[in-house]
């Protein structure tokens, strides 16, 4: 089962929850850190990477020979990553989306594709689970290709948890698609609710089932509960607002260090609640 942990709003506790799910799981679990711009999961384990894999995208290289200045390549590029004049073509690799269109368009074989490094994957044996972190090079702008490469390491069966980037744009979509279930972590504030709605809208378009974890929950603040009831979304868990949890996580500790009582509910979530929701059986909240 592939469980994505997303949110809409940044800072709601996706990483905290992802780590807790992976640590609590009773079956072997793989955790993928898909927030490749600002990955954080690895900060909460003392394990060093046992393997690192560079990630490249294929960008064009102008070979020169054979070019007759027809301009087909430049015309094919919708990202203006090529400049052509005379019989010369210049490539702006940082703007290239690696679509391969220019090489296909060239009738003379004057372009070929070469790897352009965009980041790396780091593999760690964390405490109780396997962790793979995607790290995008600072200054490179496009996260999706790195996230796609990271996801090629998903197993065909077994449990995987994906810590997703905030927001609802291409990076988040690339992370959540083809997962079985999306857990949305939110907080009971207007920001949390506003961004939760955006995330739910996005998942509806992708036809992905989802449920909500309310983090920093406060009694007497039914903001998120009211919305979930109206939208027909299950509330999977509530994590109380607690200075102790905040301090523990600030220092690099995990949710289960601060709140060992959450272990059982998290295990039940993975072993019973989510499979139940996926099978269409109604589950008592």
């Amino acid at each position: 089962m592939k469980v994505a942990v997303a949110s809409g709003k940044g800072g709601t506790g996706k990483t905290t929850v992802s780590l807790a799910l992976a640590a609590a799981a009773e079956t072997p679990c793989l955790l993928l850190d898909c927030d490749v711009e600002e990955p954080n999961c690895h900060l909460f384990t003392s394990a060093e990477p046992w393997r690192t894999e560079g990630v490249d995208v294929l960008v064009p290289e102008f070979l020169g020979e054979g070019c007759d200045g027809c301009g087909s390549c430049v015309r094919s590029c919708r990202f203006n990553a090529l400049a052509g004049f005379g019989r010369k073509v210049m490539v702006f690799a940082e703007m290239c989306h690696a679509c391969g269109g220019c090489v296909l368009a060239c009738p003379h074989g004057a372009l070929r594709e070469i790897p352009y490094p965009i980041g790396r994957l780091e593999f760690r044996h964390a405490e109780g689970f396997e962790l793979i972190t995607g790290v995008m090079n600072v200054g490179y702008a496009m996260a999706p290709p790195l996230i796609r490469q990271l996801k090629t390491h998903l197993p065909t069966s077994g449990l995987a948890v994906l810590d997703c980037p905030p927001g609802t744009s291409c990076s988040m979509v690339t992370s959540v698609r083809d997962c079985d279930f999306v857990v949305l972590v939110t907080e009971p504030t207007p920001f949390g609710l506003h961004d939760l709605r955006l995330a739910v809208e996005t998942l509806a378009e992708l036809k992905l089932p989802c449920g909500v974890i309310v983090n920093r929950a406060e009694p007497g603040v039914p903001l998120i509960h009211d919305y979930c009831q109206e939208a027909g979304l299950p509330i999977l868990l509530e994590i109380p607002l607690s200075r102790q949890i905040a301090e523990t996580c600030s220092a690099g500790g995990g949710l289960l260090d601060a709140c060992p009582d959450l272990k059982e509910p998290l295990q039940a979530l993975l072993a019973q609640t989510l499979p139940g929701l996926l099978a269409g059986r109604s589950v008592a909240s």
Partner: protein
Amino acid sequence: MKVILTSQGDSLDAAMDARFGRAAKFLLWDSSTQAVSVVDNQQSMDAPQGAGIQAAMTAIKQGANAVITSHCGPKAFRVLQEAGVKVYLTKAAKCREALQLFQDGKLQEASSANVEGHWT
């Protein structure tokens, strides 16, 4: 020689447009005929990204030997340099003034871009 000036209007009396990549218009001045023609740069202005690259290609296609502007970004500069087109920077407010300064040899050739690139 052919020189391109980045302009806000259709003649040498117009004000200079400070930016190369998203200049409203180019004025193409031909030293042999002293004639000035207007080259539209709308395509670059509308380009979501790579405007500087587009503008540079327009300039090159027009056969420009030199470009006179106030601000040229790094990608545009790379393209112009590669094509052998010299870039001259000026703070002159009007195109006529900028061209005169150029003809008098008072403008210095730029050795690099003088503004940072924008993502678009």
